[in-house]
């Protein structure tokens, strides 16, 4: 199987640089408490990234991620608040995410609306809907301990979110590299026409990735709410851009067809590490959004440079039967 190591190596190098800077300028960064906290953030971000990976790998995009995150998080929190217990609450969050993802999937595959338009539309429908359903926004506090354990607890010294993330990452990696279902995702993203000719149901695959994204967001939002101990409707504000940043920086091509779980994990680490480093180095945290934008651009430019050096053309042309592309 083809594995693209070059992007993973670049991220690892960046990670190394940031860690080195921190070691020199802010050694307190490496206190176990802080590292544990950072690890939890990385874990949750990685889960979000997994969902984005699935969608982008098929050549689509989902800008309603933030809204889905918010709705499923609130749904789960409400369930927990009503005393349904952690398992049921998690299930409800996941189910909500899956259903919302399915809506996106239907719009894109059955109604054949380009994913950018479909998800821009659902982003506002979902977020508007959330505020409406919660009567202008809500703020749930004081969630039960068995629920918040999901975000704050630990098993054998490792925080629960990290455990979740590890399990999910391992499962995803296995699925994406060792099962036909997973490989179909990359096949469709790489050349949908060829995939169809080979008997793959491209629509089903694309639709499924939106559902997968919804599920991932449901899990991630539950972990976040549990960790914070409270839920509010603006939960998902920064999630969309975060998801895309992690995916793109993690080596997922926006044209579809490439991507790896390892890349996602490394990218999540880089993003969270940098965010955290900003605070420790006493830099203004307000720069973090800018920084994410910069990351994406840097990753894109880097991938262009790498491809130029490898002699590959930017967009695979001329020998593959695919659909037309535009500027």
């Amino acid at each position, binding site marked *: 199987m083809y594995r693209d190591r070059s992007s993973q190596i670049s991220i690892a190098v960046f990670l190394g640089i940031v860690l080195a800077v921190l070691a020199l300028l802010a050694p307190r960064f490496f206190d176990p408490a802080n590292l544990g906290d950072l690890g939890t953030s990385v874990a949750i971000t990685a889960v979000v990234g997994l969902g984005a990976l699935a969608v982008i790998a098929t050549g689509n995009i989902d800008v309603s991620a933030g809204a889905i995150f918010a709705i499923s998080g609130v749904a789960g929190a409400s369930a927990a608040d009503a005393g349904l217990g952690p398992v049921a609450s998690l299930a409800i969050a996941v189910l909500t995410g899956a259903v919302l993802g399915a809506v996106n999937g239907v719009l894109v595959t059955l109604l054949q609306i380009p994913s950018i338009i479909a998800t821009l539309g659902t982003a506002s429908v979902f977020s508007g809907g959330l505020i409406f359903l919660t009567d202008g926004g809500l703020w749930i506090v004081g969630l039960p301990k068995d629920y918040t354990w999901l975000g704050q607890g630990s098993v054998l010294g490792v925080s629960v979110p990290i455990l979740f993330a590890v399990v999910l990452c391992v499962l995803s990696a*296995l699925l994406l590299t060792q099962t036909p279902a997973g490989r179909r995702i990359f096949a469709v993203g790489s*050349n949908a026409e060829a995939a169809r000719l080979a008997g793959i149901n491209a629509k089903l695959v694309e639709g499924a990735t939106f559902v997968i994204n919804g599920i991932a967001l449901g899990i991630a939002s539950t972990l976040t709410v549990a960790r914070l101990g409270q839920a509010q409707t603006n939960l998902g504000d920064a999630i969309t851009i975060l998801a895309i940043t992690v995916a793109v920086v993690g080596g997922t091509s926006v044209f579809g067809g490439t991507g790896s779980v390892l890349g996602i994990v490394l990218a999540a680490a880089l993003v969270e590490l940098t965010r955290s480093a900003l605070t420790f180095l006493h830099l203004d945290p307000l720069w973090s959004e800018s920084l994410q934008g910069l990351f994406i651009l840097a990753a894109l430019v880097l991938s262009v440079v790498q491809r130029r050096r490898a002699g590959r053309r930017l967009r695979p042309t001329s020998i593959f039967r695919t659909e037309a592309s535009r500027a």
Partner: protein
Amino acid sequence: MLTDPKSSAHEEVEAVNPTHPVLALSGISKSFAGVHALRDVDFHLHAGEVNALLGENGAGKSTLIKIIAGAHQPSGGRIELDGEEVRFRNPHAASSAGIAVVYQETSLAPDLSVLENLYLGAWTTRGVGIGWSTMRREAQELFARLNMNIPLDMRLGSLSKATAQQVEIARALLRGARILILDEPGSVLNDTELRSLHELLTESRDAGVAVVYITHRLEEVFRIADRITVLRDGVTAAVAQAAEVDEPWVVRQMVGRDVEGLYARTPVEPGEVVLRLEGLSGGDAFRDVDLTLRAGEIVGLAGLVGAGRSELAQCIAGLHPQTSGRMRIGDAEVAATPWARQRAGIGYLPGDRGGQGIFSFRTLISNITLTTLGAFTRAGMIRRSAQRAAALAAMERLGVKPLLPELAIGNLSGGNQQKALIARVLATEPSLLLLEEPTSGVDIGAKEEIHNLIDALVAEGMAVLLVSSDLPELVGMSDRILVMREGRIVGEFPRGAEPEDVMGLAFSSAPVEA
């Protein structure tokens, strides 16, 4: 030589091999927007036989293959598989029936590995997971048999076109197809690779597969074909056992028609040198090209697709990089940008009208005047009436029909679209025309008009470089013909050359001198 192919071919197809065919196409016709691509074609495939399908570009081979592959539906005729009538509604239906087609455009996923592409859509499973090691072993065995050295873990998109095609062929064989169709595989393989491919095809044939082999390389044909079918102008021109015929016969069947008819040329004295190329190279596409073009002459460029003719023309037009050598237009060396070249008097007509030429849903006015908008601009705004008048005048001069400038160009027939496109190229008043496939997909009437137009322009001093896969056109219009093969010019023919000779040089697979 001008036999009516239609009547005799039916009997010929039957006479050559009377046993029941695996796949029988009878009376197949296909038209696209009024242009007949195929008329009443018979094509029978027998198990354990290699059938070479030959014909010039445009003879209908691709269309026939696409019908067998389920990518097109025939307008008439029937298809029988093992004696039962079938309809292949889509490519998947055809491939489920055991038909595998390897096109020149690779139908593989560029981001996946070679190994994975071999098993695209059909990964071997071991329980829930993919059996990578089994797949790898099978693939390695296959590659060893095929003498292919492609690393299995390499990204397919990094491979050359030739190598990617090999993978696709391997994939078809791996899936155990009953009917294997190869669309000009030889054009991208080197001799060793070709030999192993032939061995493999022979093995497959012996195992009962029906192989269809489309090629231009005639010695290939006689190396592996059992039977030869020649298409010409959309009909079956001839069918014969390979053992009973020879190369000259094949060429005659392919070319067949009276060349003189469509191509009256007024004799012109060549004038000054308009274009001079010395040792011009454009990367891998073409190398060491020497060429001199004078006003009032037409130089034809013959060769197969991939020989470098397009790239050479585009390089002159500033659209393809020039990596070494010299190019002088008139007396000067002109900057290598398309607009500088256009200003220097070069007019370029792209070979792919639909993809590279027309703006399909924009009006004729817009299409024709795109390059000369400045002429109608006053105070920054386009005077629409002047623009329309100019477009109308151009349409009248070139005979574009219907004479409605507000129509979207996509609504016109191929011939009229082409005339409109030529009008655009002429609008910048070039002194040198680079014409790629000027009459491809154009009906006979428009063909004649376009040829007369070219002749008239040349008589007034235009210099023309004609790139055409239509051999009679090339031979009929050109004052001299340069033959390109694998990026180099391998020969030159004066006016009046025999098409077979030109073709022979273009199609030969003798290695080109370094």
